[in-house]
Every structure is written in structure tokens, then in C-alpha cells.
């Protein structure tokens, strides 16, 4: 069974800190995604990657960066965390269009 694992369920950081959110999938999927989920706004795409070292901006990339050094791992980086980045972050992966997408359990990030 495909598993997408996010490193933390809950995380509390301070403004100005550099924050790393890690996501690992075990099905050799090419495509990986980072979303943030906020009440009333649904899931908004931050960045996605279709291959190692490849990345594409989503709808709300400002304030974020990503890293994909290995196929199974896709990291989201908050360079200098701000309070408006307090949110639920979801990672997902896809193999091909014929395969279902798989999501991690989410990371609830609070920036104080």
C-alpha cells in the first residue's frame, strides 16, 4: 500500500525561523505536491515537482521554497516564517494519471 509520510503532525515555530517540512513517499512516484489548507479556502497549491531537482510554482509560492534531491523526498521550506503561514500543510504524490493520488496525514504548523 502506498504511503506518504509527513515528518510531523504538529509543529510550533517562531517568526523569523527557517522551517522545514518533510514528505516521503514509498511508491517511486514522479509527481509530488505541497498544499496548504485553510478553512474556507480549500487546498491551495504551493509547489509541485515532477522529477528529481525539478520544481514548479503553484498558486501561492511566495514565502516558500522546495527541495527534491531524491525521488522519494519532497521538502517544503519556509525561509523566514511569518504568522500568516500558520496553516495545515498537506503533501501528496501521484505516479501516472491512471493511479490515484495519495496524501499524507498533514502537518499542523503554528507560527508564533
Amino acid at each position: 500500500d502506498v504511503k506518504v509520510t509527513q515528518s510531523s503532525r504538529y509543529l510550533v515555530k517562531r517568526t523569523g525561523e527557517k522551517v522545514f517540512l518533510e514528505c516521503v513517499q514509498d511508491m517511486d512516484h514522479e509527481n509530488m505536491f505541497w498544499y496548504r489548507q485553510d478553512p474556507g479556502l480549500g487546498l491551495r497549491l504551493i509547489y509541485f515537482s515532477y522529477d528529481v531537482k525539478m520544481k514548479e510554482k503553484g498558486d501561492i509560492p511566495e514565502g516558500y521554497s522546495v527541495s527534491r534531491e531524491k525521488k522519494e523526498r519532497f521538502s517544503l521550506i519556509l525561509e523566514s516564517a511569518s504568522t500568516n503561514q500558520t496553516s495545515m500543510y498537506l503533501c501528496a504524490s501521484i505516479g501516472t494519471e491512471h493511479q490515484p493520488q495519495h496524501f499524507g496525514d498533514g502537518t499542523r504548523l503554528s507560527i508564533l
Partner: protein
Amino acid sequence: AQTVTQSQPEMSVQEAETVTLSCTYDTSENNYYLFWYKQPPSRQMILVIRQEAYKQQNATENRFSVNFQKAAKSFSLKISDSQLGDTAMYFCAFMKHVNSGAGSYQLTFGKGTKLSVIP
């Protein structure tokens, strides 16, 4: 950019009744995929049903079925014989190939509909 619109922020349905959740989308693509996802209070996102745009036949998965109207860009979800376990947030999503590279996709979600099944 693609947009996905779910016009019903919240809905409720009596147990065993039928409910329909609406979704519209905007795209200039001809080939794409549509999905409904369910997110129970436990947070894990679960795929409910998928539809390929090139297929005219509406997808069905047990109690879940869709009404896909390609010309109208509409993709509604019907839940029959609603059960208490159907209580969740439901998200409509659109997926297309992107030009970044072979086998690359972009997946866009609507804002969600909170469905409550009442005993």
C-alpha cells in the same frame, strides 16, 4: 490557471437519503481528469471517485456517482443512501498534464463542501 468552484460551503442530509454536491470548473484543456475527495475529521484525504474527461459515461463507485457535463464544465457528486460515516469535507479536484515534462501533472482543488449526515 484552472479554477474549481464548489458553491455549497455546507450541506446536510438525513441518513439514508440522497444528496448532490455541485462542482464547476474552468479550463481550456480538452484532456483532463476530475476527482472527488473526502476528508473526514481525522484529516486523511481519501479518493472517492474519478472521471476521465474523454469518457462520456459517468463514473460510479457503489453509493457514489457523478454527473459529468463536459460542455457545461460541471461535475457533481451524488451520494445515495447516505451514512453517518459520509460526514466529511468533500473536495472537487481537477488534474491536467503540464508542459514541464513527460508525466507531470498539476492538481487543483475547490474550496470544499462540508457535509453533515444527520441521524
